[in-house]
């Protein structure tokens, strides 16, 4: 039953993703790949769409995956699933546990989660880079398929993006807009990958 599966999966994602949109990418990646809902490439495309449209990244991703698997009802159910844990937890805190965040034990728990989330995001970035650019292919079949040729054009795009982003930040003292980087990479993709 795809609707129940979507609901429970996104409920889990909503309940265990700390640290905002990027914090949930590792969890969404793991679930979506395990269920066969998305490939590594499709996941990256989806994050790009989620980044370039307004609204919370998590809601965008839930709607997208839900729609691809179960139409408009699937989209609604996945979105409900991802929102529900936040909604309930916040209601409980707002109603009864205003001081919850001030307990030393809760602080200690969150203090352990925070560096863990940073590690998860960096690990996701590293594994996805190995998979998409480093020639590691789809990592779950790595042992059977083995390494393929690295994507040199991808590496070139990555280096140019990093140089552009860092120099703009140096010059303007402001972080670069993600949408600008997405547009720039789209242009480079059209030039470099054209068959």
């Amino acid at each position, binding site marked *: 039953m795809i609707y129940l599966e979507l609901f429970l999966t996104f409920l889990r994602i909503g309940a265990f993703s700390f640290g905002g949109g990027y914090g949930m990418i590792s969890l969404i990646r793991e679930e979506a790949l395990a269920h066969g809902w998305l490939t590594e490439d499709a996941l990256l495309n989806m994050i790009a769409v989620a*980044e370039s449209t307004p609204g*919370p990244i998590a809601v965008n991703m839930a709607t997208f995956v839900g729609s691809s698997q179960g139409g408009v009802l699937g989209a609604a159910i996945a979105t409900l699933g991802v929102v529900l844990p936040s909604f309930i937890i916040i209601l409980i805190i707002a109603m009864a546990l205003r001081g919850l965040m001030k307990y030393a034990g809760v602080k*200690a*728990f969150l203090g*352990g989660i925070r*560096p863990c989330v940073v590690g998860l995001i960096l690990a996701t970035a590293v594994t996805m880079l190995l998979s998409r650019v480093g020639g*590691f292919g789809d990592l779950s079949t790595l042992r059977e398929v083995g390494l393929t040729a690295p994507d040199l054009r*991808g590496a070139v795009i990555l280096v140019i993006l990093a140089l552009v982003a860092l120099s703009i930040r140096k010059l303007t003292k402001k972080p670069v807009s993600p949408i600008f980087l997405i547009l720039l990479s789209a242009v480079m993709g059209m030039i470099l990958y054209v068959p």
Partner: protein
Amino acid sequence: MKSKTIPTLFFTMLKIGLFTFGGGYAMIALLENEFVTKRRWLEQEEFLDVAAIAESTPGPIAINSATYIGFKQAGILGSVVATLGMTLPSFCIIYAISLFFDAFLSLTAVACAFRGIQIAVLYLILSAGLRMLKKMEKTPFSWAVLLLTLIGMVTLTLLSVKLSTIVYILAGGVAGVALWLIRRLRHGKKGGEA
């Protein structure tokens, strides 16, 4: 006055949901502008509390803040309306895009553009991680948790061993509590602030 609160909540959240790009942190600035500066529904100090709670509870920061502010203004109904308002724009926009996205991708030029865009997304994920690393409080403990998670997850993924992200998160939390308990035992009663 109260009767106006519900529609105002809904449309304000709808507006914020429709016009903020870049996820939760960008949204916090807009929420502050609307609810603290313009409408004065919240004091600055309470808003900082909301932001801290939204950041440290699981789930999207924008949804967490909307639920909290909605509840504070108009109870459960307020929280439902605020959360719905925040979610609706994304939902409609992404649903519409998802309908024609595959057809769009089947154009060669678009497919090539997205091959490039995938690289930008990788860059964005990496820089989000590095930004959070910069902001992280750096202690031997936080470095240990970070490196264990990073090395553990990359190694296990390359070995095709499946270990859920949830396990890492819970282990991190438990390690945090364990460290706090050990410190408390060592310093007697005084160690409340970890």
